[in-house]
């Protein structure tokens, strides 16, 4: 695959060059920074002594900080994903990303379950409307019908996995967002001795409580129950899943830039492709054996 079909190209100065720079910044700077922050927050919790009541409270605050760092990545992911559909007309995706809206993230996650699979194919850059990514390239030798079906199957399996992760992350966002807000806005973690947490039937339960912001009176929120070490495992894993999804989205969008040599004046030429212009990420069970064999043979790749 060494040629792009003649398709309308966005203005390089407004779209292509800034988008490439932004995506490279995400890959090289922003995502490693988030991973380091998550690792740091998790290590801080793990290393917190818990011998006295005071130390236990400090450890609980460290756990809330871990929630904050994990949900920070969920917010990055939602802001990035949303930007591809909400950018004002005539502007690149990062225009939406850099135009803060307080409801954007919750709206993004609230829609995950309702979105059709086609939405996720668009989100991954595997197609643009009716145009499939593989149709944008001149392929020699051309794909057979069976290979095109296998590619479509792998694309859809990738979209399905990303959809599954985003639906799960939407639930984490809903449940733990008040903890994240408490972390960001003054570490508003209630002292265990100052509050009593009860379940829906009024029975006292143990758990971490944070103070809600912008309430008429003092109002607590609790959804983190012991054992806290297991919660730390769970929350760190959610943050890392969000990072994996975000990295995959960034990498998927960057792949297309590897097919062209962009110059500062906006001119560009096609480069020989060293990798596929897309990246698959799926559960093997979601793609048929026959398709996996076809793809392995055509692209000289193995599936783990």
């Amino acid at each position, binding site marked *: 695959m060494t040629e792009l079909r003649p398709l309308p190209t966005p203005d*390089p*100065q*407004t*779209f*292509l*060059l*800034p988008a*490439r*720079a*932004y995506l*490279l*910044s*995400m890959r*090289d*700077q*922003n995502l490693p920074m988030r991973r380091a922050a998550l690792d740091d927050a998790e290590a801080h919790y793990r290393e917190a002594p818990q011998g006295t009541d005071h130390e236990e409270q400090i450890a609980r605050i460290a756990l809330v900080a871990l929630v904050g760092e994990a949900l*920070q990545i969920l*917010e*990055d992911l939602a*802001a*990035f994903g949303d*930007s591809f559909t909400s950018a*004002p007309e*005539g*502007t690149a995706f*990062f*225009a*939406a*990303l*850099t*135009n*803060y809206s307080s409801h954007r993230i919750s709206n993004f996650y609230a829609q995950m379950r309702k979105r059709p699979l086609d939405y996720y194919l668009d989100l991954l850059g595997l197609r643009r409307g009716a145009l499939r990514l593989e149709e944008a390239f001149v392929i020699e030798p051309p794909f057979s019908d069976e290979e095109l079906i296998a590619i479509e199957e792998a694309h859809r399996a990738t979209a399905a996995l990303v959809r599954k992760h985003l639906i799960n992350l939407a639930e984490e966002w809903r449940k733990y967002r008040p903890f994240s807000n408490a972390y*960001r806005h003054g570490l508003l973690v209630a002292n265990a001795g100052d509050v009593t947490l009860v379940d829906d039937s009024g029975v006292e339960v143990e758990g971490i409580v944070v103070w809600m912001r912008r309430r008429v009176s003092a109002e607590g929120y609790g959804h983190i129950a012991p054992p806290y070490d297991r919660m730390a495992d769970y929350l760190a894993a959610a943050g890392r899943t969000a990072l994996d999804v975000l990295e995959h989205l960034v990498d998927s969008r960057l792949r297309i830039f590897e097919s062209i040599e*962009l*110059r*500062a004046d*906006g001119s560009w030429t096609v480069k020989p492709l060293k990798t596929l212009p897309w990246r698959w990420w799926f559960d093997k069970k979601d793609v048929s054996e026959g398709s996996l064999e076809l793809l392995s043979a055509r692209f000289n790749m193995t599936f783990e």
Partner: protein
Amino acid sequence: MFARLFADSELTPALYRLPTRQVLVDEPGLSDGQRQALEHLASITLMRVDAHLAIVRRFWDSLHDEAKKTMHGLAFVAGCHGVEPPGAGMITRALPRDHVRPFAVPLTTRVDQLARHVNTEVGTVALTDGDVGRFAEAGLAALDATEVLVGGRLHGLETNHAFTVPRSYLDQLAPAHRAALEPLFPQ
């Protein structure tokens, strides 16, 4: 809040519940030496708090918009991707040519729905070791100022006092004043 604190000289001592001279005069059970020492300690505390707040305010005024961006979607391009070929198109055109590296490029897009106009502002945040050191210094200053505020308020609540003088800067008093306050601040 910072603007208000620096516009009204009485606001910071009121926020920190530091006693005025008249409050100390009216407080029963103190010797003249203790009143004078407490007045000095309150003055030192206020000077130190003001110094911390000045550092924090400078940092807040210059970078609070950028700090928000670190929490809401990471609207930054790495400086190297803005200035190294092939650059970042319209973002590169808005950057100074000789910015000291490393730096980050914060982006702020404003949409005017009525005029159907979109404008993306391009800024720079210097990230040299010296700059990062100043970020950390401002963070520590905020911590110190908060510690004095929380400590004073908490002690006032626990002892049912309207005013408190924290012991934080006791070591900066003259020896005679420190000695006068020993009974009030037992080790």
